[in-house]
């Protein structure tokens, strides 16, 4: 067998392998193929004749060395001749070092039961961690109640601006569009009963009680929940949070509470905008293409919807805000080590806050129905 890399000469007691060409990293797969043909017969010793080698690097030397190890382990003697480069000695040193190290450190086996145990332990630890974090936040809030000077007013206002004021355009546009969609959908169905005018009731009640606050909250969860998690996560990675701690500052006080408070202020305000935009969207279609006059629309809204409906929707906003801000900041603070983790926690923050918003909304709906509101 001959190839670019080696040629074999078989003698009764000796197999001479003439190594030639470039034994380098780029050719490793071809080298592995070539070296696999070095199969000495019983009683043959193997000599690697390396004088024809043009170039060799660590990867190439490794292929060569690996084969000799395999041959030795099967009881064949192997030796090298005519080696020019210093690489092989270098490699030998490393392998010797490896042999010692590997002997020192047997790798631990992780079986299935252990893994299950670890998963349960992790779940428990995570739960305990969340409870601890929530406790720390609650304590910081209490401290703030006793010493109002601790509240970062400026930071809170900044958060209201970022999470509330800057979100107005997108929330307004979205609820406006949903108002349009609702009226379009309802007009077809209610028209069949000759009760087209009831679309006004439908749109104003559903927007004020449910859709306005829900859409605003989901939008904010996507915008600000992720922003909270990412911002705090990067601060954790940059050791900014640690720096605050050693300066004697409470990161909860500095970072978490302004965000929670800011959002609790911002979301109800956004909800008012959302409600108004939703009804305006409904009005556009009702007046524009259904022949309901503007005055009729306003009268109908006033007749069907009262302040209770508005307050029902509005009362949910602070709760949703609390959920979004708590989950976002908590997830951000959980980032410990890597950029990957940061992405993961940010995703978790958004998904979990939207999930919690909808779950809480369902709870509210049941509650309000039971209470007859």
């Amino acid at each position: 067998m001959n190839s670019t890399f080696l040629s074999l000469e078989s003698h009764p007691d000796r197999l001479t392998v003439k190594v030639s060409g470039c034994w380098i990293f780029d050719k490793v797969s071809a080298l592995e193929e070539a070296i696999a043909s070095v199969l000495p017969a019983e009683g043959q010793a193997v000599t690697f004749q390396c004088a024809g080698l043009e170039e060799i690097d660590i990867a190439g030397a490794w292929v060569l060395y690996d084969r000799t190890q395999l041959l030795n382990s099967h009881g064949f003697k192997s030796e090298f001749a005519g080696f020019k480069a210093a690489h092989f000695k270098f490699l030998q040193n490393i392998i010797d070092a490896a042999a010692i190290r590997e002997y020192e450190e047997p790798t631990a086996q992780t079986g299935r039961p252990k893994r299950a145990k670890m998963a349960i332990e992790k779940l428990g630890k995570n739960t305990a961690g969340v409870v601890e974090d929530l406790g720390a936040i609650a304590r910081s809030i209490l401290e703030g109640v006793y010493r109002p000077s601790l509240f970062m007013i400026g930071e809170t206002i900044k958060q209201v601006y970022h999470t509330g004021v800057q979100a107005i355009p997108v929330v307004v546009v979205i609820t406006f569009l949903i108002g349009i969609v609702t009226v379009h959908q309802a007009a077809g169905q209610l028209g069949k009963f000759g009760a087209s005018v009831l679309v006004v009731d439908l749109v104003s009640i559903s927007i004020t009680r449910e859709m306005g606050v829900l859409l605003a909250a989901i939008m904010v969860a996507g915008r600000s929940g992720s922003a909270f998690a990412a911002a705090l996560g990067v601060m954790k990675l940059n050791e900014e949070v640690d720096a605050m701690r050693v300066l004697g500052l409470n990161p909860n006080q500095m970072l978490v509470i302004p965000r929670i408070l800011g959002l609790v202020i911002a979301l109800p305000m956004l909800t008012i905008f959302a409600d108004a935009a939703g009804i305006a969207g409904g009005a556009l279609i009702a007046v524009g293409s259904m022949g309901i006059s503007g005055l009729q629309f306003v009268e109908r809204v006033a007749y069907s919807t009262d302040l209770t409906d508005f307050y029902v929707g509005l009362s949910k906003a602070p709760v949703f805000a609390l959920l979004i801000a708590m989950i976002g900041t908590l997830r951000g603070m959980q980032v410990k080590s890597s950029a990957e983790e940061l992405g993961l926690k940010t995703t978790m923050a958004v998904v979990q806050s939207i999930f919690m918003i909808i779950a809480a909304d369902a709870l509210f709906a049941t509650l309000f129905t039971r209470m007859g509101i």
Partner: protein
Amino acid sequence: METIISVRNLVNRFGKQVVHDGLCLDIQRDEILGVVGGSGSGKSVLMRSILGLQKPTSGTITVMGQKIEYHKPGPSRCWGVLFQGGALLSGLTVQENVELPMALYSDMQVETRHELASLKLLMTGLSLSTADKYPSELSGGMRKRVALARALALEPKILFLDEPTAGLDPIAATEFDQLISYLHDNLDLTIMMITHDVDSLFGVSDRIAVLVDGGVVTGTMDEILDSDHPWIQSYFGVPRAIRARQAGRK
């Protein structure tokens, strides 16, 4: 002597601030070039320009005969880079970090790749028990070693080191210097090393390049020490540099 890296008339300007003003530098095959300079003298900018990570205002750079262009794939098979903070990919384990370039550039079998990666880790003085750890679980010194193993993954001809001993304790820094010398002696490596550590500068480098006044002064240690440029005088005149010089002479 064969010139491996050639920088010609490099100009780097940021707004009004001129960092390099017609800088010319040749790096020879198999040498270790230590690069020093004050803060803001453009050491990192020079390295980033050579690596094609920074668009120079003007000038040409060739590495192994290939012209470097901004954000175009350079001769990445031929060079390995050790970034200052290690720049390990935080989502991958140590082993995976070293294997990544191998997987990208070779169709070798997975087992071979594993073994070669382990070998690189051992070469840089790491034990195999670190292989499954994530970069965040390692100390600064170990992270640098892993980064060096990754830089060596593709058997590069040129190694760029950005402050390899910064942030290491004196023992780890000395070990790292020895490691670099050892690798240089055993592999055909050309090394460009940015450093503020006068010990490693004197202990390791063959030639020194000092970035001053937008240009560069190169020479052997003695030539540099004979220079009458005021900044070079004061840089090598501080007590720690004098001590390092004496230690390096021994």
